[in-house]
Each structure stands twice: as structure tokens, then as C-alpha cells.
């Protein structure tokens, strides 16, 4: 202890030094040599995809004599981490699945900056451009080139409480236009026990617009951006839609009620509070998973059209598979991407596990897609979605995609607020003005993007 006492700067620095030295020795002694990076790393954000790929990948590894690592990450953190890793130039996976609306971020600035591979020529070379649902390429294209493989189509139908709807004497085959649907909705939306609170609504409608407004806009052929990337949502047709939506979701004559997400949707459906729900293919699995007590009581119908004979579906959501520019094995990554997305026997099994219609048209004839689903009153939902898939509208991507969605919501909410205070008088003029302001706001942001596109990296 005399040594400690005689340490030049006192006891405390001595012990600090001891702690530092011991920590370094422990760290070095317990350090593991990092495992060698496998030939390919794939990341997904969906549990169902992870399970499907986990089963499928060993065959690919055997056939190609390679090692593939599959990772599962929450979608929000996947996107944020991937974006930041690309921007910072740190290590990224070879392939990554991302949600719709995120491509714009990966395709900002000069083309040389894009962190993802251009897949256009590979798609053409392998003839996939004609074998997939054409409208889905729009979601994954930027400046005329395709940067991700579409995984799905996600046509939208309506899921409804068949038992209650039949009890009420509603023939859904006659609800083929939104006018008829609203008319019926006004009849069934009721305060059933006289306490002043409505106990039964026709349809789940977001109070703030959001995805249900977007889905309806796509159904009418509306777009946030046109094919050339110009802002396209400030149209008379969108103004009409907003007026219609306000009427159905606010005021005395409303037929819509916002159910929210998760358990509150399940409760609303189980209680019969809302009869009709938006049902893209992926959500049909969510319903059956979260509300098993409704098995056999649910059924699906195509969306009512905006005009007789019009489009009976829309789209909601989408996943795409990007190949990172940093990959050391682009050809192998492309082979894996095709194997995961377009290996026909696998797609049949995957449909039964997820209810998601494959984007590959050849797969629609698989027996699995013709299977009756007991949850949906034995309807052959695979065939129902497949018959609607060719009608799905394209949705074009932009670096300011998120800004456009926020701007449209803002225009809608301001117009709805106007309606709450002033009613119908002057509503259309307000909607037009708000839409014009929202579009200008998005154009202003897009102009900033143009400055970047001209930068020489």
C-alpha cells in the first residue's frame, strides 16, 4: 500500500488508472472475432415475410453454394437506419424490403448519389416487366427507372359484418356505386338505444382524412404526382372528393366513424359499431388474426365505383425489395430477389400464410389462390383480389412524397374545419383555395430538390 500512497498524483488517480487498465485487458480478452460477412444479407420488416424467407432461403443457399443471412427489423427503424447508413456510407445489407413512399428518400439528389441499384434493364432482360402487374412499377420508379422489385399489388376491397348486414336486409351486390352505398349508410347509421350517441355506423372513415382519403383519391384516378413528377393532386376532382368525404365523416348526416388501429378496430367490428372496413389483401389477414371470434361472420365485396361501371378497387400500401449499390454480388442479389418474389410454388404457400396477392400474374392460377376462406364466409378471396388487380391504379413516387401527403391532409382538415363552422356555403371555394395552397407548398419543396439534382457529386 506504500506504493499506492507514494503514487505521484495521489490514491484516486492510481485507482482510476487501475480501473482503466483492467477494463482494457477485459475488453481485449473477451473480444470476439467478428463473423465473416455472408455472401448476401437480406433485411425485412414483416414477420410473415421473415418466416416465409427463413424457410425458402436454405434451398437457394444449396442451389447456389452461398451463405445468406436473413435479418428482421421493425420497419420504422429499418428505414431510418438504412437511410442513415446509405447517407453516411457505412455498411448496409445487400437487399432490403421497404414500404411504399420511401423510395423518394433513396432517390434524392444526383443519380450518382442513389444508394440503390437501377433494376430496369434486369427486369426487361428477364421479361419480368410484362409478367408483373404493370401499375406497381410506378411506386418503385424514379426519373423513369425502376429501383425496387414490387412485392405485392394490395388491391382494396371492403370487409363487412356479413351476419349483421344480412340481418339488416342489405344486398351488397346492389351497392355498386358510392351513391348507393351512402344512401344505404344513411339508413343504417343509427342511435339504437336513444341515448344520443350513434351506435352503428356504415363505414370506418379516418376523421383526419389520411389513408382513407388517399385510397379514395387513387380509386378516382387521382395522384399526388404525375408520371413526370409534377404535383397533380390539386384538381377539381380531388376538391369534389374532399367535399364528399367531409359530408360522410362530419356533421349530422355522416355515415363514417374512425375506428383507429389495433384493438379499437377489433372492438368496433365485434360490437357491430362499424359495418364496413377497408380491406386491402394484407388487412384481411390482420382481421382474421386479431378478431378470430368473427370467423364466418365476415365477407368481402369490391369497393363501390364512383360511377356505374367504374373502377371497383384502389390500392393501399406496398412493399418493395431494393438491392443496395454497395453489394459485392449484384447478380447473386438479383437472383435471390427473383427467387424470393417470383418462385411460383413458394408464392402459393405464402398467399395462404399472409393473404397477400402476388404481383406475379402467373401465380394467380395456383390452387392456393382458389381456396375458400372460412373466415370470410368461404369466399375465394385470392380470386376476388386477382380479378381486381389489373384495375389497380398506378401511384407515382417523388422525393417530396411525404410532404405531399401531409399537404393534402392539411388542405382537407382546413376545409373540414371550415365546414364545421360555416357549413356548405362557400365550402367548394375553400377547398379549391386550400388545395391550391397545398400544391404550391409541395412545389416549393420540390424546387429545393431540383437544386440538389444538379449538383455534381
Amino acid at each position, binding site marked *: 500500500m506504500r506504493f499506492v500512497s507514494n503514487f505521484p498524483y495521489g490514491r484516486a488517480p492510481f485507482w482510476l488508472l487501475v480501473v482503466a487498465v483492467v477494463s482494457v485487458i477485459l475488453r481485449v480478452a473477451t473480444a470476439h472475432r467478428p463473423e465473416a460477412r455472408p455472401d448476401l444479407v437480406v433485411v425485412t420488416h414483416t414477420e410473415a415475410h421473415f418466416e416465409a424467407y427463413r424457410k425458402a432461403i436454405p434451398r437457394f443457399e444449396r442451389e447456389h453454394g452461398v451463405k445468406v443471412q436473413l435479418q428482421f427489423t421493425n420497419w420504422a427503424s429499418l428505414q431510418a437506419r438504412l437511410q442513415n447508413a446509405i*447517407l453516411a456510407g457505412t455498411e448496409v445489407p445487400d437487399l432490403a424490403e421497404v414500404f411504399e413512399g420511401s423510395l423518394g*428518400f433513396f432517390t434524392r*439528389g444526383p443519380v450518382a448519389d442513389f444508394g440503390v441499384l437501377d433494376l430496369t434493364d434486369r427486369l426487361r432482360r428477364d421479361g419480368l416487366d410484362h409478367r408483373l402487374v404493370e401499375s406497381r412499377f410506378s411506386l418503385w420508379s424514379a426519373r423513369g427507372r425502376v429501383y425496387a422489385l414490387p412485392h405485392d399489388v394490395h388491391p382494396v376491397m371492403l370487409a363487412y359484418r356479413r351476419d349483421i348486414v344480412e340481418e339488416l336486409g342489405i344486398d351488397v351486390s346492389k351497392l355498386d356505386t358510392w351513391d348507393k352505398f351512402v344512401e344505404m349508410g344513411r339508413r343504417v347509421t343509427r342511435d339504437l338505444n336513444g341515448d344520443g350517441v350513434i351506435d352503428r355506423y356504415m363505414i370506418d372513415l379516418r376523421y383526419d382524412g*389520411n389513408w382513407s382519403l388517399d385510397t379514395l383519391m387513387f380509386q378516382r384516378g387521382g395522384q399526388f404526382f404525375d408520371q413526370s413528377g409534377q404535383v397533380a393532386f390539386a384538381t377539381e376532382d380531388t376538391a369534389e372528393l374532399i367535399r364528399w368525404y367531409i359530408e360522410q365523416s362530419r356533421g349530422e348526416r355522416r355515415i363514417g366513424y374512425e375506428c383507429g388501429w389495433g384493438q379499437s378496430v377489433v*372492438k368496433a367490428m365485434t360490437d357491430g359499431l362499424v359495418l364496413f372496413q377497408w380491406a386491402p389483401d394484407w388487412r384481411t389477414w390482420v382481421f382474421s388474426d386479431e378478431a378470430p371470434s368473427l370467423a364466418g361472420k365476415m365477407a368481402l365485396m369490391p369497393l363501390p365505383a364512383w360511377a356505374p361501371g367504374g373502377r371497383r378497387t384502389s390500392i393501399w400500401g406496398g412493399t418493395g425489395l431494393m438491392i443496395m449499390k454497395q453489394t459485392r454480388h449484384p447478380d447473386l442479389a438479383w437472383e435471390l430477389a427473383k427467387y424470393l418474389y417470383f418462385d411460383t410454388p413458394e408464392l402459393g404457400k405464402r398467399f395462404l400464410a399472409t393473404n397477400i396477392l402476388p404481383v406475379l400474374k402467373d401465380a394467380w392460377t395456383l390452387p392456393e389462390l382458389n381456396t375458400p376462406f372460412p373466415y370470410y364466409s368461404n369466399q375465394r378471396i385470392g380470386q376476388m383480389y386477382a380479378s381486381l388487380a389489373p384495375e389497380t391504379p398506378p401511384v407515382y413516387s417523388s422525393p417530396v412524397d411525404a410532404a405531399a401527403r*401531409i399537404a393534402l*391532409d392539411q388542405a382537407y382538415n382546413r376545409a373540414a374545419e371550415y365546414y364545421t363552422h360555416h357549413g356548405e356555403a362557400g365550402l367548394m371555394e375553400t377547398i379549391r383555395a386550400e388545395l391550391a395552397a397545398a400544391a404550391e407548398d409541395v412545389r416549393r419543396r420540390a424546387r429545393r430538390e431540383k437544386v*440538389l439534382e444538379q449538383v455534381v457529386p
Partner: protein
Amino acid sequence: MTTTKTAGRPRSWVGRPRYKGKAPYLFLSPYVVLTAAFFAVPFVNAIMLAFYETNGPRSRAFVGLANFRFLLTDSTFQRALINTTLFALVSVFVQLPLSMGLALLLNSGSNRIKGFFRLVFFSPNLVGQVLVGILFSVLFTPRYGLVNWGFFAFLNWGLEARWVSDPQLIMPAIILASLWLWVGFNMVYFLAALQTVDKSLQEAARIDGANPWQVFWHVTLPSMRHVVIFVVIMSVIGSYQLFELPLTLLSESYGFGANNAGVTLITYLNYMAFRSGDLGLGSAVGWVVAVIIFTISLIQIRLGRIAEED
């Protein structure tokens, strides 16, 4: 001629003795190097960034003051500034008086009760803003949420209130959640300060005929003014940095909420810098926030000094 104990040693320009040995500088060097690497360089870089439009750290274009001009005319930024300022005002004029009230109540109770309630009121703060955001998004569920049921039971209103999708209710929802989160936290500061107030002064005031309010206003509050000033400054700074709570509560809209009713300066910064990849604009927002906080803090400190002199 005057002499000091350090006479004979070289003196630095601040008048303190300067050591000739290398040891102090050696010991200081890790801190200096780390500070330079993780504070000074990013600090200077952040200043530079505000004058560029960027695509992450890859490509950048010099745009001069364009980022600041964009902010001045951007309605979303203006809304963020209004929302954040409103939240800061509520923090100072609603949250802190509530904290003080709770502290006064607890200060008059027995030590056992005091300890129990201190834990109860402080505990929301232990779980963090993210969990509180998730928790309140459930409590705010229209028709089924506990908050909606509570309002309906007592006020016959609010069963279908859309706290997180009605633009009129989004800010009140954030404020309600933040009150639950922060009132107890600030109460602990006030409670600690109350326990240092000289009881004999309060007793003397009471004997002189002062009522409870006069005792509080003229004796208790001035005695704890340093803590009050500290808490007010920290609350304002915290309010201008509000981020996780709206982001979690309004996660579907990047923390903005319908009609941007819940956007704050930092959620706007986060969206611009990390969602859009425009680090330059994000940096410009950061500087605006820094200037606001610095200015308000200076004003508060000055007002505190004036009050002290009075």
C-alpha cells in the same frame, strides 16, 4: 509592494498560477480531444451546414441564406413555432403552478405520506416520453379510451373525442400527457426547495397577521426564488425541445398531426433532417431553436436578477 502565496510562479492571463509540469495538461488532454472531436468540430460543421442544401453528407449545394428564408415563409415552420411557444407558455403558467401546488400540499403532510406521494407523482417520469406517448394513445381512444370515458362521465362530453386526429384537440392532448409526465418531476424540485425555507420567517409572518397566501407570496416564494428561476428556465428549454411525446402520440403523421396541429420545432427539424435528408435545413432549424432558447433564457435570468434586487 504586495505578495501572494503563489509569488514566484508564472501566472496565466486570468491571474491564476500556471503550472510548468506537463501532468495537468496530460490529464486534461482526453477531455480536450474528445470535446474537440465530438463538440467543437460538429458545432462548426452545423454552422456551415445551415448554409447548404444537402442530401445527407453526400452532396451539398451552397444556398447562402436560402434555408433561413425558406423557414421564414414556411407555414409548417411557423405553425411549429406557434405550437412550441404555446406549449412553453402552458408549461410555465399551468404545469409549474400545479407542481408548486402539489409540493405545498405534500410539504404540509407527514414524512411517510410525503415520501409515498413523491414517488407516485414522480413515477410517470421514470417511464419516459415514448412510453407515455404510447400509453396515452390508448387512453385517448375514441369511445373506448379511459380519458374519453372520464370526460364523458363527468362532463357528458368527449366519448367520441378524437384527441389525436382532431386538429382542435391535438395540442390539448399533448399538454394533458405532458402534465401527467412533468408535474411530478418539477414538484420534486419545489418540494426540496420548500424544505430549505426558514420556518422562523414564515412563523414570524404569521404572527404579524399574514394570511397563508401572503406568507407564500412574500416569504416562501422569495426564499426559493433560485430554484423557481432554475425550474422555469429548464421548463422553457425542455418545452422548446419537445419531441418524443408528439412523435409517439402522432406517429402516423411523423409527429405533425392533422393540419400540423401537433408539429413542434424539433419534430419539424427531425422530419426535415432525417426523413427528408435535408440536413442543411434541419441545421438551420436547430440554430433558430438555439437562438430562441438562448434569448428567452437570458431574459429570464435578467428578470430573476431584477426581482432579486427588488
